């Protein structure tokens, strides 16, 4: 299987502080991988480094080609969608405008229109609120909107940063079911950063555990979930 994303020796810095110390991992095409770890371990930094939102060194390859020093927006246009921490919703714009923005870099008008309909099919609650200001949606609804917006890019790789944050467990289950569906049916490779390890491991095929900027564990999600020692040491349950 081809590697969708190949990260080699990634080091990232906030000013003088080094947050990642030589991370290496790869994502297979069509896989659903989760990146786990405690607060401050470097999970968000990893996602940001992939999109060149933080100063970093190392080699990142997407679909075999190096990303180099491309700007964030040009990395996105290659087909990598990033749902950031806090969702990054355009709160002052309507739900539909948010979806349109997701597709702003695309040129196929007809495709965009049909994709918006598909998003409404995936997420019926968005269809109800299509003309509402995005800031008035509930947390769960905004998360759905963020995922839908990312999908409007027709990405081949989707990065999600703590999508479960602040959401009730039932809503998180629904969200993760949808993510699984997207991964299988739309063939989108997904990398999910999560603090909620249990749910994430149920969803994913592969898992990496990161601690203070280094990968300390990697492997099949089911095996890691079943490994009591790992769970207790690194995942807290």
């Amino acid at each position, binding site marked *: 299987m081809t590697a969708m994303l190949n990260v080699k020796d990634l080091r990232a810095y906030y000013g003088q502080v080094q947050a990642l110390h030589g991370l290496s991992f790869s994502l297979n095409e069509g896989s659903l991988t989760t990146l786990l770890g405690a607060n401050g371990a470097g999970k968000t930094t990893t996602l940001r480094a992939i999109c060149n939102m933080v100063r970093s060194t190392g080699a990142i390859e997407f679909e075999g080609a190096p990303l180099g020093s491309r700007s964030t927006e040009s990395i996105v246009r290659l087909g990598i969608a990033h749902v950031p921490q806090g969702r990054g919703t355009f*709160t002052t714009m309507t739900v539909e405008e948010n979806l349109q923005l997701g597709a702003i870099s695309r040129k196929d008008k007809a495709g965009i229109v049909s994709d918006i309909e598909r998003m409404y099919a995936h997420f019926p609650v968005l269809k109800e609120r299509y003309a509402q200001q995005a800031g008035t949606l509930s947390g769960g609804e905004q998360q759905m909107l963020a995922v839908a917006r990312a999908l409007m890019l027709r990405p081949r790789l989707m990065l999600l940063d703590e999508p479960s944050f602040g959401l009730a467990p039932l809503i998180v289950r629904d969200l993760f079911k949808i993510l699984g569906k997207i991964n299988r049916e739309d063939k989108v490779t997904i990398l999910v950063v999560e603090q909620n390890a249990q749910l994430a491991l149920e969803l994913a095929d592969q898992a990496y555990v990161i601690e203070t900027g280094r990968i300390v564990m990697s492997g099949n999600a089911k095996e890691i979930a079943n490994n009591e020692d790992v769970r207790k040491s690194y995942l807290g349950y």
Partner: protein
Amino acid sequence: MSAAAEDVVTEAPAVEAVPKRAMTLGTGTSLVILAALLVVPMFVKNFIIFQMTMVMIYGLAVLALNILTGGSGQFSLGQSAFYAIGAYTSAVLMENANINYALTLPIAGLVSFAAGFLFGKPALRLSGIYLALATFALAVAMPQLLKLNFLEHWTGGVQGLVVTKPDAPFGLPMGQDMWLYYFTLAVTLAIYIGSINLLRSRSGRALMAIRDNEIAASAMGVDVALYKTLAFGVSAGITGIAGGLGAIAVQFVAPDGYTINLAISLFLGMVVGGVGWLPGSFIGAAFIIFVPNIAESINKGLSGAVFGVLLFIVIFLVPHGARQVAIVAQQLIGRLRK
């Protein structure tokens, strides 16, 4: 989540912090500069001495702005108004009430302090661009207020007042310019050292906490309103003293000498020197005094354009002002030592 009509903003502070250690020059550098300042006047012409005096005076005004903006994060385009108040206070007291020039300075400072404090109070609700507009209005109003008819008896109206330059006291063997230079140097040193101590004190930390994050500072128990108003007052007071010295040095005061152009120049002086870096105030003052003249000598017709180009060159090379140069110099010296 949040209500419809609001934007939630987590702002980066508009004014960046200067680490406490970097706030002044090192002891060695300071002593060298002080020695030079004491000795140089004996070897140069009167006109140069006069220019050095003006650099110190404008430097004080820029320093005051640095305390206000770099210290408490409040943006002011109105310093020319306080400078004018100080200048006129000194002039009026000297010429109409025969008060000794040295005594007029503390009074000028107090009057300006009061003016700044009074202005600072209603300005509390304003920040950023709104405060800029308010201070701008003050600066524009001041020359007009000084021309008002019913004040003419005191202010001399449009023509202003002539100010008598003092002689050296106790029959000291030096000219007026040289005496004024040393007098100004003494006042400047006192205020400079006082300001540094202020910024390093608890009050200084409170000010900087307000600059960096007003809401957090208030949550920690800092009386934000009091400190912000005090900052305005202190800044105005120092500017007023500078104005008084300026009146004495230039030997007259007139309304059109204190226009918005002065306020803008002081602002530029602060940026060129490095916001929040007190020693830079004097470098900034030198810039705003000398560079316009240089621009005019390069091309009289395009002097404004040349000035603008020179200013751009400076801010491209050192966006953080002279402080950047000082930091680089410090690093170089550090490397040479090894």
